[in-house]
Each structure stands twice: as structure tokens, then as C-alpha cells.
């Protein structure tokens, strides 16, 4: 399989948040501003890529019976490194993400990629698989964070967008807004996918010279 396919799969077809509905906790908890969403997305991208490489490197030595604990230890170590780096260099971001950064350890998507992909493939494909999944995750986080920040507080990355006439609905920044925004985005994606499917079916029907019998 070529690398582009492996990479791009995570972005749309198997988007961790919007398609697979995995790792939802951060998608709701830290997406009230774009900045937090982006930080979280990049941290997860780093963790998932590094962990895929680690798992792929050690795949021939790890006994299959104890593979899940080994994966968890590897993930926890990488997450701790990310935590320490963020705490040292970007303390305000570390504070904003709070406990959710530690919870990256138990993200289903990271364990799932290690189990499904990295433990069976060579290093380079595993690297791109992790990178793609991470990109998809980051993109979804920024999308959700963008909608919530622009509509919910009328700013983007902290800069005010609208004039004083705009009274932002607070609810979008609070807890319920996260659920509602993700629900709407998933609905819109389904409509889009429906159109896409119909268009491709129509194209096939037109181009095929042999009409189906009966």
C-alpha cells in the first residue's frame, strides 16, 4: 500500500473523532478555544506517531501475550515526556489543558493504532499511519474549536472578530455546546458523504455503456 493512502486515511475516511468516535473526551473538553484545541491536537499527533514508531521497532521482540501492557507503558512514557516539556516551556498551555493531557494515555485511538497497524507493519508505514491519524485528529479538534470559539465568544485565536453588536451565545463555550457542535458537524459530514456517493454512482451509471438487463 502506498504511503499517501496510509497517511490520508486518517484525515477523512477514518477520522478518529468524527468517524470512529474515539478519543472524544478531549474533543469536547479542550475545544472551547482554538489555541487549546491546537495544542492538544499537536500533542496527540506527537504521541501517536512516536508510539507507532516505538511499537513498530519492538514488534519482533514483544511477546504477543503481554503486548497490551507494553503498549500502555510505552504510551504513558511518551505522554509524560510531553507533559514535562509543556510544563517547562508553555506553562499557561499546560494549565489550560490540565488533566486532559494526562488522559492522553488512555486514548482508544492511540492503543488501537498500535494494535491494529504498528504491531504488524514496518517503521515507515507506521510512522505515516500515526502522522495521518494525528493530522485527522488535529484537524477535527481545530474545526470544532474554531466553530465554538468564533460563534461562542466571537473571537479567533483571541482576536475579536465582530463588532460590539455581537452577543455571543455562551452555551457554545460551555459543556453542552461541545456536544451540539460535534453532533451538527457529524450530520453535515453525513450529508456531504451522501452527495458524494450519489454523484459517483451517477457517474458510473452514465459512463458504463452496458445497461443492466431488466
Amino acid at each position: 500500500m502506498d504511503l499517501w493512502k496510509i497517511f490520508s486515511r486518517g484525515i477523512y475516511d477514518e477520522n478518529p473523532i468524527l468517524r470512529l468516535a474515539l478519543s472524544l473526551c478531549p474533543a469536547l473538553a479542550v475545544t472551547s478555544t482554538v489555541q487549546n484545541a491546537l495544542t492538544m491536537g499537536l500533542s496527540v499527533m506527537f504521541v501517536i506517531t512516536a508510539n507507532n514508531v516505538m511499537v513498530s521497532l519492538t514488534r519482533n521482540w514483544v511477546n504477543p501475550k503481554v503486548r497490551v501492557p507494553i503498549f500502555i507503558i510505552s504510551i504513558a512514557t511518551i505522554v509524560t515526556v510531553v507533559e514535562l516539556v509543556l510544563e517547562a516551556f508553555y506553562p499557561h498551555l499546560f494549565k489550560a489543558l490540565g488533566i486532559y493531557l494526562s488522559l492522553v494515555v488512555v486514548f482508544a485511538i492511540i492503543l488501537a493504532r498500535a494494535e491494529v497497524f504498528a504491531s504488524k507493519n514496518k517503521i515507515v508505514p507506521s510512522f505515516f499511519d500515526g502522522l495521518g491519524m494525528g493530522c485527522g485528529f488535529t484537524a477535527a479538534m481545530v474545526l470544532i474549536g474554531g466553530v465554538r470559539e468564533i460563534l461562542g465568544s466571537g473571537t479567533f485565536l483571541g482576536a475579536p472578530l465582530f463588532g460590539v453588536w455581537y452577543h455571543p451565545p455562551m452555551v457554545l463555550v460551555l459543556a453542552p455546546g461541545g456536544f451540539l457542535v460535534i453532533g451538527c458537524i457529524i450530520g453535515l459530514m453525513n450529508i456531504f458523504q451522501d452527495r458524494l456517493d450519489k454523484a459517483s454512482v451517477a457517474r458510473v451509471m452514465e459512463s458504463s455503456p452496458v445497461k443492466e438487463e431488466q
Partner: protein
Amino acid sequence: MSALHDYFLLFMGAVIVNNYVLTRFLGLCIFFGVSKSLNSSVSMGMAIVSVMSISSIMTWAINHFVLQPFGLDFLRTIVFVIVIASFVQLLEIVVKRFLPNLYKIWGIYLLLVATNCIVLGVPLINAEENFNFMKSLVNAIGSGVGFSLALILMASVREKMEYANIPKPLRGLGGTFIVAGMLALAFQGFSGMIPK
């Protein structure tokens, strides 16, 4: 009297006011995955409450007697996740061996619990807030009960949704999120009921 008062407030806070699922977003994977039927959500809730109360005791002991005295706070995440995951595995083996009937109902949910945000998150919050032993336990049980409450509410709504005429793009995951949003909106009404 005042200690009892504190514990009661902490418990109700964890169950309703700061419901871990609907206002702090922990344990959502299970919340969306298991809430399809009422029966399974009740079993899941039981599994969560028991695992969380025991694992919070264990992690409190480790944090208090090992990590803090030796200044190893930065290892908290790694140690907690290993302790909880191995404890759940052990519990699964024990239940399978000695209570096979319970295992039939419970087994699969126990596995789901092993690596879950809420089961790791609550001990981490307990450690961060420096709760004492009783407070950690009360907080863990309260958040487990709150999780079960949210799960059961969600499952009851979803069972009714089977018969409703929902717009096609929102069927499945999308609609479920919007229902969760409505539930969260309702729970938002409780905020501020416990004075800080």
C-alpha cells in the same frame, strides 16, 4: 457534623453538579458505546462504581505512601495507569473463576473499563486536589454514581429514539451527540448550586 456536611456536598457535587460525563467529559467512549440499551447500561454502571472505588483506594495509597514521600510525582500517570489496568485484569480473572454467572453479565464491561478516561481521570483529580482518604473514596463513588446516572438517562432516551422519525443525516452518532447536548444543558442548570 461539618465533616459529614463536606462529604455530602462532595458526593452530590460529583453526582449532579459537576457530573463527570456531562460537564467534565470523562468516559465518553463508553457513554456513547454502551448506552444503546437500558440493561447493559445498568451493568456497566455497576462495573464502573466498583472498579472506581477500589482503584481510587489503591491509587491513593500508592500516591500517599510511595510517590509523594520520594518526590516521584511526575511518574503519577504511568504508575496509575499500570496499577488500574492490572487491577482490572486481576478482577476479571477472579470474577471469571469464582463468580461465573456474574462474569457472563459483567465480563465484557470489565474489559472496557480497563483503559478508560474516567477510571484514570478520577484518581488523577483526587491526587491533584490532595484529597484525603475518605474524600478520595467519596469522590470516586460519587463520580461512578454520576456516570451511571448519565448512562441510564441516555439509554432511556436512546431506546425511545429507535421509534422516532429523525432526519437521515442525524441518525446514529450525530443525533446521539445532540441528545447528549440536551442532557448536558439540563445538568448545566445545577451549576452554582454548591457554593465554592
